[in-house]
């Protein structure tokens, strides 16, 4: 209990804690149907301080985050729409092609949320046992994966509203839905690497501001990476209390 805060401040911060949870959930549901445009227009700050990070790196500034998410994702999903158009007649009647790409069900649990004493920011971390699935593929079979990740997110109180400021996604484990032994798969990749290895990532094409890797997925030969440590009580957002340090 932060008794050094006034009752008004504590009420404001209680609302902030709920807003952090709400905004991350809103992100999860909008992302699940690939409504990236709505997400980055409605619930994010448009500040140059906005950032979104994944294993491969980080976009800094709202315009770059928009480019990475909205522009890129829409092209991917438009391609799925084109492929499926002839195979599943119902697709032709959809009003929004974007959700055809996949259903990314990043379920949120294990919330740890802190609101700054100054009431101007909030920080949250989550663990997610997620599932990514889609029935629509040219081979006309479902595809499904489990995806276990951890998230670190910062939020800012801006013009009387809570907004998303930073997001860092740390994928730890991914494998086929219900038929995976991800640890064994990881071991097998180590002892018997696929010929040629994975294709190198074109970081230039991604136009990242911070080039990764920022987080490595689980393998049998590394220690746990606490890339987005849970937030501790804090007074104000600074480089010690953020998921994106200012350069």
């Amino acid at each position: 209990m932060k008794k050094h805060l006034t009752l008004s401040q504590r009420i404001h911060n209680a609302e902030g804690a709920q807003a952090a949870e709400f905004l991350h959930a809103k992100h999860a549901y909008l992302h699940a149907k690939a409504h990236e445009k709505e997400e980055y227009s409605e619930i994010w700050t448009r500040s140059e301080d906005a950032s979104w990070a994944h294993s491969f790196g980080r976009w800094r500034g709202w315009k770059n985050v928009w480019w990475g998410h909205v522009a890129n994702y829409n092209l991917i999903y438009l391609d799925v729409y084109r492929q499926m158009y002839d195979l599943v007649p119902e697709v032709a009647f959809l009003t929004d092609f974007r959700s055809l790409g996949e259903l990314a069900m990043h379920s949120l649990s294990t919330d740890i949320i802190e609101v700054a004493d100054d009431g101007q920011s909030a920080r949250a971390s989550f663990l997610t046992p997620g599932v990514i699935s889609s029935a629509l593929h040219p081979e006309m079979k479902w595809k499904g994966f489990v995806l276990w990740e951890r998230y670190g997110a910062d939020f800012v109180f801006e013009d009387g509203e809570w907004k998303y400021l930073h997001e860092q996604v740390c994928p730890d484990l991914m494998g086929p839905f219900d038929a995976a032994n991800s640890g064994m798969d990881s071991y097998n990749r180590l002892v018997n690497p696929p010929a040629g290895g994975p294709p190198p990532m074109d970081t230039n094409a991604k136009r990242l501001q911070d080039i990764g890797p920022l987080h490595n997925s689980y393998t049998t030969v590394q220690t746990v990476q606490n890339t987005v440590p849970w937030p501790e009580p804090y007074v104000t957002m600074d480089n010690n209390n953020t998921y994106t340090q200012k350069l």
Partner: protein
Amino acid sequence: MTKKLSKSYFTEDERILRVWDIEDIKDLMARRGFYIASEMHREELNDLWVTSPEYRKTASLGSNLGYYVGMDDIANYYVVKHTEDRQKLLDACCAANPAVKNHRDNLGYGCMTFHPVSTALVVLSDDGHTARGNWYVIGQDSTWQPGGPASCRWSNDKLAVDFVKENGKWKIWHLVIANDIQVEASKTLNDKPTIAPPGSDPAEVEFNAGDPTVRMLTHNKVLNWSDNYPTEPEAYFHFDDKDSYGPEGHPKYEKYQEK
């Protein structure tokens, strides 16, 4: 939060009560998960759902294939039919194993249903009388099978719920269970054909067997979430049927009525 809420209209007392209301609603949905896991369908309807005649009449329980409307229809499906199904299983179980007593206390013998909720997204109306929310369920349904091994299915849903405050307590008014995945455990989803043969989806067979009040395709999981139903709640002032998770809130309900 996506629209500006009229927070400045509220006193501090009202604001903290609104915070508490949202926590109460999350608590209510967590309790529902435990009721389901404990095979307490009847108790769930009695304890967690609306009780006043005005709301009982319009309460609804929806799925991908339609809605049961009114607490009587909901109870006939969710309690009576469920109990009958469990009794049939128990009869078969007792026939196979005389050590099991055919007694009501053994209903649900060999069954387990876990539908834990996560990813709460709750919006409280500005007037404070109603609320709306979404949750994810990454759940499993395990059922003893007569003469064979148990059937264990993964079942992933999105829940969409309208709540109303009755005598100071939040109650479930409309609930939609939009299913996205039904797959037998240990069978990879990646072998499942996109277009399932009619009658092969256990969740749909089970829902239809109870004869829903409103029979309509509400959510086609083959198209992922392209139908955008049920969609996330937005900030609102006052409850409106047309924006609800009852049948009237479905974008194709008018077409259904015309038919």
